[in-house]
C-alpha cells in the first residue's frame, strides 16, 4: 500500500507544483522593424453633402376644401391683433389692439347681423396726437398695465350721437349660418351673399356687470369700484358712457379684475377672452360690442355701433365653428394664398430643381430629371432647360434637353420646366435627378436627388421652396436618406496604411465609397486608394455596397469595412497629411477627387523629414 500511495501522490505533488508556475510573456508584433503603428483616427465629416432645392413659382389652385379643420390656417392661441402697441403706451409686450394696425382712424367691420348702426360714421381714433387709434384690451399682468390681476379696456370712439348713451360689453355669441359661412366666403370671394347672424344661445343670456360710467384706471381689486366679473354673465358689461355734446365721442378706460373662473386665452392665464384655436369656456367671451343704450340704460342689442371679434365664433356653447376664427376677415385671399392654406388643393405651375455637388460623369452616363408618383412605378422623363453652375455662377444653359452632363468646371445644375404638361398626364408629386444611360427611356435605378411637394393636397403644407434630399429615392419605396456617418480607426504600420471603418451609411444607389490620400496644401498630391473592402478574411470588394444584401451590409449601413494600402517605403506617406473616405457616383470620371467627404483623418507624418 505504501508503494501504491507513493505512485499516486508523488505525481500529484509534482503536478501541483507545475500548475502553479508560469512564465508567459507577450510577444511583440513587428513589421519592417517597426514595433508600433502611428494612429490615424477617422471621423464623420459631413463636408459638402450633396443637396439642392426644389422650387416652384407658385401653386395653381384647383379647389378649396373648407371641411378641413382650420382650412384657412387662422387658428392660433392669440388672434392676429395681439401685437405690440404701435403707440408705445404699453411698451413692447403684446396686447390686443382692436384696430389691428398702426392706423389713425378705424371703422369696425359690418358684415354680420345684427348689422351695426351708424357704422359708416362711428370710428376709433387717437385723441392724443399719436398715430394708432385707441382700442386696447390689455391683459392682466401686462407690464404696461401694471395691474397683476386686472385687465384694462381703453377705447376711444367718435362720430357718435351727442348725448346718446352707449354700453360697452363682452359677449359670447353663437352663430346662425345662412349659406356659406361668412368667414369662408369672405376669404374665398371677398363678398358676402347671405350674412350670418350672431345670437345669444337660448340658455346663455344673463346680462350683468357695470353699465355705469367707467370709473377710471383703478388697478385695485380690493376697491369695490373696480370692475368685478360676474360668473356666467353674458353679456358682461364693462362700462357705459354718454357721447359728448360737442366732442361726439366717448372714452372709457376701465379695469376689470381677473376672475378665478377664467381660463387660458389670449394674453396669458385667467383671460376673459377665449383662445383663438379653441372654443371660449362658459366664463369667456368672443366679441366686444358697443351698443346704443335704451332710455333705461339697458343696451339695445339690435343696435350695436361697434363690434370686434376677439375669439372664435361658436355654433353652440362650447362648440367651435370651424374656420370662424377671429377676427372676421374683410378681404379675400388670392388664389396663390389660398392654395397654400390647409384647405387648398392645387399643383405647382413650374419647377426649378437644383442639385449640388454633382460630379462629371464618364462617357456613357448622363444626368436625367424624372417626375414620379411616390410609391408607384408611374414616372416620366422631363424635357426642359438646364442651367449648369459652378457653385452659384452660371456656366452655360441648355434648352430643350432631357439629359445632360457637366463641363466647364460645373459642379451643380438647375433644371427648369413647366409642370402643367406633365400634370395633365399624371399627378406627379416628386422630381428626381437620376444617373442614367444616354437616351435611356426607363426610370434609372440611381435616383440620388429628389424633391417632393409638387402637388398641394388638402391638409398638407404647401412650400414654394424645399431642400432637395440626397440618398436613394427608390421610387418612393424603401427610400434611404444619406448622411455621413461612422468612424474609423487604424494607422500607418511601417509601410502599410490600414483603416477599419465602422457603421458607414449604405451609399446611395449608383454610388460608392473610395479612400483617398490627399495633401491639404498641395492639391496635386492625391492618390485614389480605391473602393472599400470587407474586413479579413473575405476582403470582398464593397463597390456594390449600394445593392449588396449580405454582411457587412446590414440594412441601411455597412457595419464594418476598411481599406489597405502598401507602399514600397514608409516615407511614401510623408507626402499626404489627409486620409479621407469620399463618396462618388460609380460612373464618375475616376481621376477627379469626389466632393463629398464622408470620413476624414489626419496623418501626423511621424518620423517624416
Amino acid at each position, binding site marked *: *500500500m505504501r508503494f*501504491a*500511495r507513493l*505512485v*499516486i*501522490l508523488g*505525481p*500529484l505533488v509534482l*503536478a*501541483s507544483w*507545475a*500548475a*502553479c508556475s*508560469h512564465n*508567459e510573456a*507577450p*510577444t*511583440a*508584433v513587428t513589421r519592417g522593424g517597426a*514595433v*508600433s*503603428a*502611428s*494612429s490615424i483616427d477617422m471621423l464623420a465629416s459631413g463636408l459638402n453633402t450633396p443637396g439642392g432645392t426644389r422650387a416652384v413659382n407658385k401653386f395653381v389652385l384647383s379647389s378649396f376644401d373648407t371641411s378641413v379643420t382650420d382650412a384657412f390656417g387662422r387658428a392660433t392661441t392669440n388672434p392676429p391683433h395681439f401685437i405690440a402697441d404701435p403707440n408705445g403706451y404699453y411698451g413692447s409686450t403684446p396686447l390686443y389692439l382692436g384696430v389691428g394696425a398702426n392706423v389713425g382712424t378705424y371703422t369696425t367691420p359690418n358684415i354680420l347681423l345684427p348689422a351695426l348702426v351708424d357704422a359708416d360714421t362711428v370710428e376709433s381714433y387717437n385723441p392724443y396726437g399719436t398715430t394708432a387709434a385707441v382700442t386696447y384690451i390689455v391683459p392682466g399682468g401686462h407690464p404696461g398695465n401694471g395691474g397683476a390681476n386686472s385687465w384694462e379696456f381703453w377705447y376711444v370712439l367718435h362720430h357718435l350721437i351727442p348725448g346718446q348713451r352707449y354700453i360697452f360689453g363682452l359677449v359670447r355669441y353663437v352663430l346662425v349660418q345662412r349659406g356659406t359661412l361668412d368667414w369662408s366666403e369672405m376669404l374665398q370671394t371677398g363678398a358676402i351673399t347671405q350674412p350670418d347672424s350672431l345670437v345669444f344661445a337660448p340658455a346663455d343670456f344673463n346680462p350683468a356687470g357695470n353699465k355705469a360710467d367707467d370709473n377710471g384706471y383703478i388697478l385695485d381689486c380690493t376697491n369695490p369700484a373696480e370692475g368685478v366679473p360676474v360668473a356666467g354673465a353674458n353679456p358682461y358689461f364693462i362700462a357705459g358712457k354718454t357721447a359728448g355734446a360737442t366732442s361726439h365721442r366717448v372714452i372709457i378706460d376701465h379695469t376689470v379684475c381677473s376672475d378665478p373662473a377664467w381660463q387660458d386665452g389670449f394674453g396669458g392665464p385667467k383671460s376673459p377672452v377665449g383662445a383663438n384655436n379653441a372654443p371660449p369656456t362658459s366664463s369667456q367671451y368672443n366679441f366686444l360690442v358697443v351698443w346704443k343704450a335704451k332710455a333705461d340704460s339697458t343696451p339695445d342689442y339690435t343696435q350695436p355701433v361697434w363690434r370686434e371679434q376677439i375669439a372664435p365664433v361658436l355654433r353652440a356653447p362650447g362648440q367651435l365653428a370651424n374656420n370662424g376664427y377671429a377676427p372676421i376677415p374683410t378681404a379675400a385671399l388670392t388664389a396663390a394664398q389660398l392654395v397654400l392654406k390647409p384647405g387648398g388643393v392645387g399643383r405647382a405651375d413650374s419647377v426649378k430643381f437644383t442639385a449640388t455637388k454633382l460630379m462629371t460623369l464618364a462617357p456613357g452616363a448622363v444626368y436625367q430629371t424624372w417626375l414620379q408618383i411616390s410609391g408607384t412605378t408611374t414616372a416620366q422623363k422631363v424635357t426642359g432647360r438646364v442651367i449648369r453652375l459652378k457653385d452659384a455662377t452660371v456656366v452655360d444653359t441648355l434648352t430643350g434637353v432631357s439629359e445632360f452632363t457637366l463641363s466647364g468646371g460645373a459642379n451643380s445644375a438647375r433644371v427648369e420646366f413647366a409642370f402643367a404638361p406633365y400634370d395633365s398626364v399624371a399627378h406627379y408629386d416628386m422630381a428626381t435627378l437620376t444617373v442614367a444611360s444616354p437616351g435611356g427611356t426607363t426610370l434609372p435605378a440611381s435616383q440620388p436627388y429628389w424633391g417632393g411637394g409638387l402637388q398641394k393636397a388638402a391638409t398638407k403644407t404647401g412650400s414654394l421652396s424645399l431642400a432637395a434630399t440626397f440618398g436613394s429615392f427608390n421610387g418612393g419605396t424603401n427610400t434611404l436618406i444619406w448622411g455621413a456617418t461612422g468612424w474609423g*480607426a*487604424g*494607422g500607418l*504600420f511601417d509601410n502599410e496604411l*490600414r483603416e*477599419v471603418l465602422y457603421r458607414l451609411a449604405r451609399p446611395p444607389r449608383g454610388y460608392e465609397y473610395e479612400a483617398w490620400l490627399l495633401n491639404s496644401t498641395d492639391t496635386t498630391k492625391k492618390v485614389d486608394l480605391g473602393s472599400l473592402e470587407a*474586413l*479579413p*478574411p473575405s476582403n470582398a470588394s464593397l463597390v456594390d455596397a449600394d445593392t449588396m444584401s449580405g454582411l457587412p451590409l446590414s440594412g441601411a449601413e455597412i457595419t464594418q469595412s*476598411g481599406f*489597405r494600402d502598401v507602399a514600397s517605403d514608409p516615407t511614401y506617406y510623408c507626402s499626404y497629411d489627409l486620409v479621407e473616405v469620399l463618396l462618388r457616383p460609380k460612373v464618375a470620371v475616376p481621376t477627379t477627387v469626389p466632393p463629398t467627404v464622408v470620413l476624414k483623418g489626419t496623418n*501626423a507624418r*511621424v518620423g517624416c523629414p
Partner: protein
Amino acid sequence: MNGKFAALLTVGGLTLSVAGLPAQEPGRFQVTPAFGVMRFDRTSALSSSKAGLSRLWGYGSLSALYRVTSGFRAGLYVEGGRATADAFYYPLVLLRYSQTYKLDSLSQRVVVLSYGLAATYDLPLGGKLGPYLRAGVGRHSVFPDVQHTGSTNSVTGAEFSLGGGMGYKTGGGGLVRLELVDNMWSKWDRDRLNPTALAYQNTVFPEDNPDGVGWAKPSIIHNIRFMLGFTFTPSGGGTQ
C-alpha cells in the same frame, strides 16, 4: 497555490479514500494510476498551432473501478494536466499609447482537470494479454491563469470518453495497461480562454490577427489521450 487546483488534490485524495476501503469488499476494487500524453483537439486552442503538428502534453490519471461482474468494472476517474492556450487562436493584444498602437500576442498556461464515472469491459481472450473497452461520462474543468484573467472562474462542461486498451498481467495480481481514449468535450468555446479583455483585442489591424481566430468551432471536440498505467488491488487479493 491556485485554490482550484487544490480541488484536484482533494478529488485525488477522495479517490484514494475510496480505494482505501478494500476490507469491506476484498479484491473487488482496482486502482489504476496512469501517465501519458494528451493531444487536445486542433480547434481547442490547447494543443495545436499554425505549425500544423499536434502538441502533446504530459497527462496523469487515476481511476478506481469496482468489479461488478467478472469482466465489467465501473467506478470513478480523475485526470489532469497542464497545457497552454495558444495565441494562434486569439486576436492580438492592441494597446494604444497616445498616437501609436502596439500589437502583442499572448498565450496562457492553463490546468485541465476532468473527472466522472468510467466503466471497462474486458474482452475474453485469455492469456496474459487482455484487451478491454472503456467508456465514461463526466465533466471537464479548465482553470485559466488567475494572474492573467484576474478571476478564479473556470471553464467547465460535459465530457464523454470512449476508447480501449490492452492489459498485461504481472505477478501478484498486478496489471500493466496501455490505453487510448478519446475524451470528447461538448460545447467547448476556446474564446473563453482568451487571456485578453475584449477592450484590448485587436480590431484595428485585423489582418495581423492569427489565422486561428477564424478557425471553426465544432460543437464537440476530440481530445486523444494515450497512457501507460499500473493497476493493483489495494486489498492485495482478488482476481482479474
